[in-house]
């Protein structure tokens, strides 16, 4: 967690992520319009909205998978336009709705991928992957060498979370993380995630169509409607 602490110390009280007057459209279709949002370091914000409300777009703007047509998005005080996209994405954990585990890599290799891109030595990568698997409730001894196709949906999503946390990124983006799971597994994962968060204190931006999930996981909940945010908590 060394990186994390240093960054927060350096930033002082400045917001971790802030969006001001952000507009984004796919051609004619306006997705987000004059959107303002500020997220403090260590805060967990849940955004609720119907499908098509622009939830995923909002996340993609934060790690520069997309750039806004107007307005500014600051991450750790710097405009995403000025960030090197690769560097920004590596320090932004992302849990995808479809999970997107790499089918040709084992569970351990999936979790250790960003450390590998960052050039960590193999021993450190391995130790980190095992620690994270234990943290998300998949004992490394049992699961590290498995292939993604040998896991259940809930187990895959746990691996997805572990992978997103691998280099201890200051920001964690989650897109409908537990949406596709059955209710028992979902509840279990939610409480598990709250436990993990108490442990790590990441800044989390979570989008979901499920109000229960939003209130369970967010310190603050906002509603995304017609391209703008309205406060709900």
């Amino acid at each position: 967690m060394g990186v994390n602490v240093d960054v927060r110390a350096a930033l002082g009280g400045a917001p971790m992520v802030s969006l001001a007057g952000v507009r984004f459209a796919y051609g004619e279709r306006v997705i987000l319009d004059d959107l303002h949002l500020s997220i403090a370091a260590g805060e967990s914000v849940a955004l609720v909205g119907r499908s098509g409300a622009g939830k995923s777009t909002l996340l993609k703007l934060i790690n520069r998978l997309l750039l806004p047509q107007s307005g500014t998005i600051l991450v750790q005080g710097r405009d995403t336009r000025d960030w090197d996209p690769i560097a920004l994405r590596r320090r932004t954990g992302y849990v995808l709705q479809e999970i997107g585990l790499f089918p040709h890599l084992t569970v351990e290799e999936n979790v250790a991928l960003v450390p590998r891109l960052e050039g960590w030595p193999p021993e450190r990568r391995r130790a980190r992957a095992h620690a994270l698997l234990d943290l998300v409730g998949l004992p490394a001894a049992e699961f590290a060498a498995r292939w993604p196709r040998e896991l259940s949906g809930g187990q895959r999503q746990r691996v997805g979370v572990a992978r997103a946390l691998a280099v201890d990124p200051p920001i964690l983006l989650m897109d409908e993380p537990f949406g596709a799971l059955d209710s028992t597994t979902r509840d279990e994962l939610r409480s598990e995630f709250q436990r993990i968060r108490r442990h790590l204190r990441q800044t989390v931006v979570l989008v979901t169509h499920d109000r229960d999930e939003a209130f369970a996981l967010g310190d603050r909940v906002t509603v995304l409607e017609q391209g703008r945010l309205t406060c709900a908590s």
Partner: protein
Amino acid sequence: MRLLNFWMTHGAELGAMIERHLFLVLWSTVVAAAIGLPAGIVAAHRPRIGRPLLAAASIAQTIPSLALLGFLLPLPFIGGIGPRIAIVALVLYALLPIVRSTAAGLRSIDPSVRDAGIAMGMTPRQLLWLVELPLALPSIVAGIRIATIVGIGTATIAAAIGAGGLGEYIFRGLSMVDSTVILAGAIPAALLALIADGVLTWVERRLAPGRQRLPRAAPAAVAAASLLVAALAAVGIGSARPDAIVVGSKNFTEQVLLGELLAQTLERRGLTVTRRLNLGGSFICDRAIRAGDIDAYVEYTGTALAAILKKPIVKEPEAAFTAVRDAYGRAGLSVLPPLGFNNTFAIVVRGADAQALNLRTIDDLRRVQTQWRPGFGYEFAERTDGYSGLASAYGLHFTTPPRVMDLDLVYRALAGRQVDVIAGDATSGLIKALDLAMLTDNRRYFPPYHAVPIVRAAVLLAHPEVREALARLAGTISEDDMRAMNAAVDVDHRDVAATVKEFLTRVQ
């Protein structure tokens, strides 16, 4: 049994052919992969470039293989006889399966997996090497597997242009109408295809960790089965009678006439003869006689020295004959005395031009070299003892580079004024028929090409009357006789056997 026997007696040759076959297929597949993989990646990432790319590869695939070789022959750098052009043709065929399966493998990757890679901060290069290529690898290997199997089949055609390989047996067997020889080439080719399929399917499965695959032996089984069926269909077309003398010839009119001439001469002595005329080029006849598949054919001293024995050219006719006789003798082949005529290259112009400009010798061509267009057959254009040697021997520099075309076409092209000077055969029947004139080789550049019967020594020992009968042909055929016989067949469309019979009746 005959087949096993054939393989046993031709063991070394068979080994060399398999080796050559694999050489052709391996090189062409490696080159095709080197071109096809990047092309497939581009095709998958940029459909706008990819679509025309795939269309081009598809078109290359639809060209019949012999036609493709025909198109490639006259091209500079890649053209010409031999393995290089065969590899180029095989590469063109191998490209489509490799490009298509690479592109398909990349496109079939779950988009969420690619998105995850990008979101995790992979550079495009890392995404390609760490995610896309490993996931597409089984599909890529499947494409390489198909390309290899197609290549093993198509490479048999390469024998047609002298590139060697197992096709040589198939072509030799087809022209000799001997199913054993066809099978001797077809069966190993089918087995190679099966083995290649097995090995590459295994590789493909190994490269797909954590994923199930369907069994995919079908294409190879089909390929192997069709090869076998084709080979078996050839069974029963007939085989040589055991005690007959087998006479062969190359695949042009004069050679067929000379083969028929040997055959009729032997038959007049009461011997049984099997005709295997029209065998293909010098190379195939030479292989056939050395393998004992034919017993006799007519070769030319100059061709024997330069093209078959790969010896320096000898300009003096006697010395050339002696050199050829000695070299063949060491291989158990007897060279009988020359038949008489010299079928050398002839530099030919239109008769009217020769008269109007008073052209008599090749030297005289220098007067017209700035205006005239030369036209040559592939062999003459290509060989060092052809055009390039002629040009330096006579100090000739045609302003227009020579047009290269099929040897059969050059005479018509000359008569039709598309070219003004050609290299032809001194004995061509068309020289007279089209009112053309031959220029004298006053510097004696062209080596002698005297026609000599070549007979297996073992046959001469078993049938002494063969030597006696063929020796009586020595010196009996003049250039005019040969030109007349060629003209009778090529121009007047007379029957070969009747033409030869007439000639033999006249001289004996």
